[in-house]
Structure formats: C-alpha cells, structure tokens
C-alpha cells in the first residue's frame, strides 16, 4: 500500500497546472466570464497535450494512463475554472472520433432527470445521453416504461432544447426537450455514469482546494484593526475547517479513482460537492464585501459548485445509496 501520488502523477499534475496557467490565466478567465464558449484553439492544445486521450491505450494513440491520472487532470480544470464539457470529452475520447485530439467537443447528459440540462449546448458537436434506468427513445426525462440502461448519441443540431438561464456565467445551459433519431453507443451506462460522477467530484475537489488558497491569500493580505484578518481566530478557524473539508474530499476522491467502487464514488461525490459548495461560501465570508463583488473569482467557484452538485447524483441520492450500503 502506498496511498500517495507517484512521481509520475506529481509531474502530470504539475504539467496540467502549468499548461492551464499559461493558456488560461486570470485575463482569459475574465474574458470567459463574458463569453464562456470553450476556446477551440485551447481545446486542440489540450488534445495535443493528451488531456483527453489520457486513458486511451498507447496503441490507440492515447497516453495509456488510468482513472487516477484523469482525476488529477480534472482536479486542475476545476481549480482553474476552465469552462467547457471537460468531463464529457475525457470520457468520450476514443469513442467519438475527433474528441481525443480536441477537434470535436461533445456534451454528456443524464436522462431521467427533470429538467435534463445540457452544458455548453452551442459549443458541442454532439450530445451523448446516458440513461441508467430508461431505454433510449425519442424524448427524454421521466416515465417508467421500458426502463433499461443505455447510451446514445445525437448530432447537436438535431437536439431540441429550450433556453435556460444558467446561474453559472461560465457554463451556458439548455434544457433538452427531445433527442430524435438517437444512435445507440455500445458503452456500459453505469460505468459511464460512475466515471462522470467521479470526474465531476475531482473538479469539485480542485475548486474546494482553490477556494482555500483564495481565502488564505486574502486573509494574509487584507488588514483590518491593524492586523491581517487571518490573524483573528474567527477567520483562522474558518480557513482551517475549509482545509479539513478539502482534504477529506481529496482522500475520498483519490481512493475512489483507485478502487472504482460504486459506493466509494458515491461517497467521494458527496464529500467533494459539500467541500466545493461550503468552501466557496466560506471563502465569500472570509473575503467580506470583496467576496460579494463580481470581480472576485470566488462567486464563479460557488456557482459552478452548485451546478456540479446537481449533476451525476445529488446529496440526497448519495446519502440514500450509502445508507443502503450499510445493511447489505
């Protein structure tokens, strides 16, 4: 047993962080708030760097790594607030042509929800729908008839949707109202869903860890009453609890990436969602008035965390699954 990052994993994380810092720095982030469409050039660069092909075997032109490495990279995207369907592209590289290289951008939706929300609808070339309970059919959403698992794809322009004003300025949303003439994909829907949940949790983890950094940086810099606010216990202890949340989530997410167990992923998503949302809120509080402005990044973390917490399993669903797991 050696539950620490390997040297290779550390190097991968460093590389991802550096690439994102170079190509998606503060100015680009601010520009993205105004226009959140994924940057196609950046996307191709990410593709060239192996971001999406991470888990494809080397003989298929991939990097030949595993879920733990994908988690590390996704954590960095969450940290950097990179807009775009990164989880979808990570999971569908090698399945949908052109995704691995970053040429094509695809979206991923969970069926059987009300509403079914589609991230970055205008940017996606295709939409893939995962139904873990319902068979692919025309139209999506509720209904108990003929429920089986399945994954199907559709060209973006054939999907009918209604506008939806996303709370997250970095993630435009549409409400899917119909997915006609969908083509089935031979993928394991449960596995796809589980991996989507885990990679989303990894992004939450990156965000949760980042808001600790933002809060600490502010608390060290900002002076009130003749001292850095971070020297006051009230602020200090808020920051300490933020770190505890982030580190608990980190252990859960990393371990789930190794075991790939259903309950491990469920628990990791639960803790990472909570860490991301609560840390972002505490980060607002530590920032005081500044945290309430549009200019501070922290609201972007909060809104994205809210959004991700609604995807691939909510807290209520997770708690029920974990409870059931205690008596089986």
């Amino acid at each position, binding site marked *: 047993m050696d539950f620490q990052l390997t040297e290779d994993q550390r190097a991968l994380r460093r590389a991802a962080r550096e690439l994102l810092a170079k190509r998606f720095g503060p100015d680009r982030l601010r520009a993205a708030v105004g226009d959140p469409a994924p940057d196609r050039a950046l996307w191709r660069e990410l593709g060239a760097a192996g971001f999406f092909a991470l888990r494809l075997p080397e003989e298929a032109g991939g990097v030949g790594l595993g879920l733990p490495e994908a988690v590390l990279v996704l954590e960095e995207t969450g940290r950097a607030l990179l807009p775009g369907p990164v989880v979808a592209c990570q999971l569908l590289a090698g399945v949908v042509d052109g995704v691995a290289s970053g040429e094509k951008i695809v979206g991923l939706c969970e069926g059987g929800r009300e509403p079914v929300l589609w991230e970055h609808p205008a940017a996606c070339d295709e939409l893939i729908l995962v139904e873990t309970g319902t068979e692919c059919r025309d139209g999506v959403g509720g209904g108990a008839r003929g429920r089986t698992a399945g994954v199907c794809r559709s060209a973006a322009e054939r999907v009918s949707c209604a506008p939806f004003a996303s709370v997250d*300025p970095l993630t435009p949303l549409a409400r899917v109202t119909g997915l006609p003439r969908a083509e089935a994909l031979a993928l394991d829907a449960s596995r796809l869903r589980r991996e989507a949940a885990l990679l989303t949790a990894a992004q939450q983890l990156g965000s949760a860890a980042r808001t600790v950094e933002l809060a600490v940086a502010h608390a060290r810099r900002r002076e009130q*009453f003749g001292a850095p606010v971070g020297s006051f216990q009230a602020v200090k202890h808020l920051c300490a609890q933020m770190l505890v949340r982030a580190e608990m989530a980190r252990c859960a997410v990393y371990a789930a990436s190794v075991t790939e167990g259903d309950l491990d992923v469920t628990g990791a998503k639960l803790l990472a969602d909570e860490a991301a949302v609560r840390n972002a809120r505490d980060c*607002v509080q530590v920032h005081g*008035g500044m945290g309430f*402005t549009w200019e501070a990044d922290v*609201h972007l973390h909060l809104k994205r965390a809210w959004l991700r917490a609604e995807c691939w399993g909510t807290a*209520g669903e997770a708690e029920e699954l974990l409870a059931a797991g205690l008596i089986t």
Partner: protein
Amino acid sequence: MDLTFTEEEDAFRARLRRWLGEVMPALPAKPAADDWPGRRAYDAAWQRMLYDAGYAGLHWPEDAGGRGATPTQHLIFLEETERAGAPYVGANFVGLLHAGPTVAAEGSAEQRARWLPPILRGDEIWCQGFSEPDAGSDLAALRTTAVRDGDHYVVSGTKLWTSHAEVADWCELLVRTDPDAPRHRGISWLAMPMDAPGVTVRPLRTLAGSAEFAEMFLDEVRVPISHRVGAENDGWRVTMVTLSFERGTAFVGEVVACRRMLGALARTARDNGRWDDAVLRRRLGRLHAEFAALWRLTQWNVSEAAAARPPGGGGGGVPGTGGSVFKLRYSHARQELYDAAAEVLGAGALDADHEWVAGRLSSLSYTIAAGTSQIQRNIVAERILGLPKGR
C-alpha cells in the same frame, strides 16, 4: 407579556390598511432593476404619498417633522405595508433610516430645516459614504481626507458600497479631519452634494450580477463647513448614535416576507413532489419555528424600545444589543431559507431567472453587510456577555 394590540393600535392598523387598500391598486408598475432614474421617481412618488397621508417619518420625533408614533405603531406600519406589497424605503433608505435621524439628533436648527423636510417629502435622495476599500469591518480605519480651505473642506478619497449613488442628491460622508488624532477621534460627518465637482460614481457589480452599489471617487471636492453635522472630529460619535438605531426594525418587512415565502416553498414542494422528501420537509418545518421565533424576537425588541422611549415621543428608545442577536440569527436563517428554496427547485435552482435564485445570491451578503457575523459575535460576546475585549 401582552401580544394583543390596544384599541388605539388596532385603529391605527385598520386606518392604514384601508389607506393601503385605496392607494395600492393605483400604484404604477415597478420600474426595471437597472432603471435608476425610474426607480428614484417611483420611490420618491411613494414617499410623497406617505407624506401626504401622514405616514412619512412615522417614528421620527415630532420636532423633526415626524409623527411621533410608538415603536409598536411603527412595527404595525412595516408589517402592513409589507403584507400589502407596498414599496419599501428604496432610494429613500439612507435619508429616512440614517442620514435623516442623524441630522434630527445632532444637527443645528438650520440643518434640520434644510434637510429633513425634503427627505420626508421624498424630494431629496441621500446616499451613504462610509465604507472604503481599506475600511470595511474596521470602519474607523477610513482614510478619506478633508482639509480646511477657508469656509470649505476639500475632500479626497474613495468610498465603497454606496447604494443609489447615481441618483442621490446628497451623501452623508465620513471623512478624516485630523490625521494625527487617535483613529476614532479625527473623523467628521459631512453632507456632501452629489453634484459637486470632483465626485465620480462608478457602478459596482455584485455577484448577483446587479449593480445595486457603486464606488465613489472624490477628487478635491469642496464641501462647505456649514454642511458638517456635529463638532469637528466628533463624527464617529455622531454616526454611531444612530447607526444601530434601526437595527431592531430594519428587517421587519423582510421577516414578514420570509414567512410568506416559507409557505410558498411548502406549496411548491407539494406541487412538484419534493414534499415527499422527509429531509426537506423537516427542514422547512424547522424554518417555520425559526422564523416564528424571529418574529417574536422582533416584537420583544420593539417592546423593549417602547419601554425605553423618551417621554417627548418619537420612535426612540436606546438601540438595544438585541439587534445583534437578531441580526446574527436572521442573516443565517435567511440563507438557510434560500438554500431550502434551492432544494425545492432541484436542478431548477440553476435557473438564474428564478426570483428565488436571485434571492439566494443576495442572501450571501446578509452575513457580511452592516457588520459581519464575526463582528456581531464580538459585539454580543463583549457588550452583552461582558467577555474581555481584544485578542
């Protein structure tokens, strides 16, 4: 302990309700959130209606042009206007709730005559220039300077979180008139005309996406010395006298609104099926108890203020520390309410156009503005519980 109202109070309520029933249907449509001139006109018109009907400055002392109503009547007024969906103070906020009372308490006869009537009539709008980039929780750290030049002060500095600055006529301004005095001792209170040369206002966008507030840049703005209220360098005391004055009642309307919203959450949940979620249901049940208690705490604080009321009338009473207890719990309960609303909406809570989602974002400011929860806990611990200062 008496929760029933006197005949006089019942009559006051009935009269007010009748009047609201008459005027509310004729009220024009609310202007858009970003239509500042429209909002000013709307709020001013409402204030004028209140003035004409005898409700302006209800709780101000009579010698300041107020109606000398009791705190309980004021509570009834706030409760009934909220229930009727009437506008709240809006653009008149600072004039009616802080600058006005400060002038009433500390101003000269001339200053009262000049500034109070236009506030009560809705003719003049005030904004507040207190916070600065480096003076938030620690307001006494403010650095905007005022240097005497003949019969004027020359004022330079930056102010933050000024609401309605774009349409205000006056700004109540805290400035440093003695840079060498101890922090709290070198501050003065000035009334600054917003059209004075050197005043620049820039909207400050909040995380809710709206521009409710502004930054204000002051570049050698000349303010007549006669616009100072209170003695030079006594501005801290002048301001504090009234700063927590309204805390006991400032949120009355909001608590009424929150309780109504709680009912709406429950009905929405019942309609969309989330009511079957026991965790959510019990959360709403708990909030029911919390907001009921917050309402009782409001009544408690108002009754306390009434008991301490000066014989000369006026809304008066010493501002109690009960306001800090109220604000601490209320600000968090409001956030819990909007979190529960998000739970009721499910993925619908990602819809920025939903009013509950906008309300959820705004609720984040409640534990920060007008004294963070951390500052409030210090106040409660030190001033009520007598725990030692510092560290």
